[in-house]
């Protein structure tokens, strides 16, 4: 591919044609914050934390989706970039629970001096189902003095995973992973409009009644922990989630001949979640229900009517390993 020449913050760099500005920035040794971007998904450029300034453009440009052009002048740290990134992070942090975003994002938020309290105290959480029932165009009058948020009770509808949409930044990644970029199941989409937009099944039916096949690929791409293994959710709630104490073992799924790689996250001798390496040629991070959730048989602990998670919790509470 023909090389394209551009500058990033004044430094000349050439990258293959068709590359994004983000790739050019990375090649120039200047990583940018991203939330809605993932190598394995089609860019949707909705989160706007990766915005950069391109000379000649009236507004800022999403580096994740914009393709480089010959002679482009890109600025990643100009005043408008700094201001907009800061405010965009603040918009997110003041409306969404970002407690589970990765360390890198947290560093960026510190870098931009993000202060979500500038917009007022967070409004009380919406009751279960209230946000899902909102109709397009019907105005939600602001509650005086409060900053509106997407806080709401988590949707816990099965043993496998939890949808905690109070943590959802609406990055569209799960929709893409469930849809044409990976799973082609189309169980979830963005419904509603504006601030009332949310990830939803048709009429917000439970996931168990929807088209969902429990591949967990949406969990794999979610950047905020809104989609989370039930086991991780419970352990976190109980204050027992302990990444220091976890090991991650890479192995090959034993169910079929495709050869998906698994990463088994183990704490207290229990598998607490399963992921797949993003850079693996077969899976690109995606799995099916068997590889993702079908791990009980390797740790059948035998206790009647208790799930392994219950036992991990019990183990934690008692400070030791429970004999089945």
């Amino acid at each position, binding site marked *: 591919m023909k090389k394209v020449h551009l500058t990033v913050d004044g430094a000349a760099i050439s990258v293959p044609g068709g590359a994004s500005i983000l790739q050019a920035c990375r090649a120039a040794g200047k990583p940018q914050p991203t939330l809605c971007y993932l190598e394995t998904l089609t860019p949707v*450029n*909705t*989160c*706007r*934390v990766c*915005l950069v300034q391109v000379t000649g453009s009236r*507004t*800022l440009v*999403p580096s994740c*989706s*914009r393709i480089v052009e010959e002679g482009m002048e890109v600025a990643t740290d100009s005043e*408008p970039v700094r*201001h*907009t990134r800061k*405010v*965009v992070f603040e*918009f*997110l942090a*003041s*409306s969404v629970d970002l407690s589970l975003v990765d360390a890198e994002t947290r560093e960026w938020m510190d870098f931009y001096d993000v202060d979500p*309290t*500038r*917009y*007022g105290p967070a409004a009380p959480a919406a009751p279960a189902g209230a946000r899902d*029932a909102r*109709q*397009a*165009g*019907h*105005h*939600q*009058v*602001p509650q*005086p*003095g*409060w*900053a*509106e948020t997407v806080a709401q009770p988590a949707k816990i509808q099965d043993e496998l995973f939890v949808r905690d949409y109070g943590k959802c*930044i*609406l990055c569209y990644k799960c929709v893409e992973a469930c849809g044409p970029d990976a799973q082609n199941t*189309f*169980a*979830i*989409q*963005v*419904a*509603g*409009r*504006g*601030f*009332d*937009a949310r990830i*939803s*099944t*048709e*009429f917000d*039916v439970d996931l168990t*009644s*929807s*088209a969902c096949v429990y591949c967990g690929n949406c969990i794999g791409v979610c950047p905020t922990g809104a989609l989370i293994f039930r086991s991780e959710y419970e352990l976190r709630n109980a204050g027992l989630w302990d990444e220091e104490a976890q090991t991650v073992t890479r192995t090959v799924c034993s169910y079929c001949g495709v050869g998906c790689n698994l990463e088994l996250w183990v704490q207290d001798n229990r598998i607490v979640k399963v992921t797949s390496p993003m850079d693996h040629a077969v899976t690109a991070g995606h799995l099916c229900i068997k590889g993702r959730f079908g791990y009980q048989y390797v740790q059948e602990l035998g206790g009647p009517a208790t799930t392994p998670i219950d036992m991990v919790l019990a183990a934690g509470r008692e400070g030791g390993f429970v004999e089945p």
Partner: protein
Amino acid sequence: MDLHFTSAFPSTPERVAVDRLLGGPPSGWTGGARAAADYHVALGGHHHAVGVRHRLLPALQAVQSAIGWVSPGALNYVAERLSVPPADVYAVASFYALLATEQQSLRMAHVCEDVSCRTRGSLRLLESLAGRDDVVPSPCLGQCDRSPAVLVQRAGEYDASLWNATAEDVAEVLEGATPIDPEPGHYGVPQSELGSDRLRLLRRVGTIDPYSLDEYRATGGYAALTKALTMGPEELIEEVKRAGIRGRGGAAFPVGAKWEAVVGQGPDRMLVCNADEAEPGTFKDRGVMEGDPFSLVEAMTIAGYAIGAGRGFLYIRGEYPRAARHVASALRTATESGLLGDNVLGSGFSFDIEIRMGGGAYICGEETALFNSIEGFRGEPRQKPPYPAEAGLFGLPTAINNVETLINLPLIVLEGGAAYASRGTAASTGIKLFCLSGDVARPGVYEVDFGTTLRQLIDLAGGPLEEIAAILLGGVSGSFVGPDLLDLPLTFEDTHAVGVSLGTAVVMPFGVSTDFDDLALRIAAFFRDESCGQCVPCRVGTVRQEEALHRLIGGVPLNGASSDLGLLAEIDEAMRMGSICGLGHTAGNAIRSAIALGLIGGRP
């Protein structure tokens, strides 16, 4: 596609409504009864699904207008018929304000609460209708010249527009046994009623029967198409460039340059006419479509010929039932008369126009959101580039133009580009329609040359009703300007020079007794309601803007480090620089200008 459905089944009326639009289901694979053959062949598939997706919004509208909402059973049936996943259908249905995903009354009154109507009685109207669950407040209905405006959605009947509405009118339409006449006479414009014989764009509006092709032809109609077909596309585009005409939809892009960009692309091209007209205060395109629908059909045909398109789409906002009926009738008549369809006027050029109705979403006026809406997706704007000229509707090179832009074409063809350009100014050639409402004596659409001043225009509309405090120029995505600018010539360049924009040519003067706090809050609420929700700066920014404005106006600022005024400026800046589309870019304009003029906030 292997779709999964909930157990909700469609009722007979729901099936009938969808089948009337789509035809009966061809097989058990798409919602029909299962025949033995269906077990042996798989019909449909990916290509079928991709090919019919664009019928999604019309199918949902058919259900909505038949039974008054989109029920789970109906949604499943639409999904099955079109091979669209139910979650996707719900995603689309829940995007539009005129589609309900919960059961509601069979007749629903949408009472305009927007900037013009709320200063002219609609708030009182809403108050007197309070407590009714079949009355909802609505954003601007494009009838600001006849405030208070109401749209009544009626399952199984025509939707009806009411104007200068009273509580009794609304109650009667909601409860009345007899369907109201969908065609109450009269669609004149003030200038023709005053006897002006100098009108060109508006000369037929209110003076001919909009259903009559004969009357249209008798007043010079179709002379331009006949001439255009002899000129050839290149010469036609040259003439348009010579005319110097710029788009009237808000962005003021030169038409000739846009068309050339499209013609430079592949051979399969598309024409789209943008009749979404949802910018509060704007109603000019409605007037033309209601009063002179053939002129738009002729103009679209000329444009299609110029850019070499075989097909055109006309996207009319859902709140314009009458405009849609008039244009639909004109399309039928033109096709029957050989003026549209195969081999137009024996020229060898073939062109079809399809009408699509909006679903109640301001954002669908943004060109790329409009494409997504037609294609059956959520009306979310696309990041540009690529621009419509490269990849527009269905990914094809597309010329998209506003109604008013297009209806200038017959004039340009008949008198020549140079003659057209001799009006107005060098950078703003020709004539312009303005929408006057608010505190003026004779609200309505006015046709003037570019360069007419604000004062002249307001005087043309009978003058202000009281001393003017400020004028909302360009719509709610435009700005308030003070009376010191009354002598501002209305051109693209003069408005630009003082940091404002003509926008959609809204001129809405407000008198000194106006409650600007209330107007500003309404504008903030509008943007919050109409944001598509896709990008963070606009989705959250419009909420934070409204909250800060409430604090500012309510006199309860945050204790935080920065004042709400400063915060508003920061929010505005982030929305303008960081949003995907023009809605977010302009969502802070009117509020910023109101603050700068001292109309709101910071007063004792």
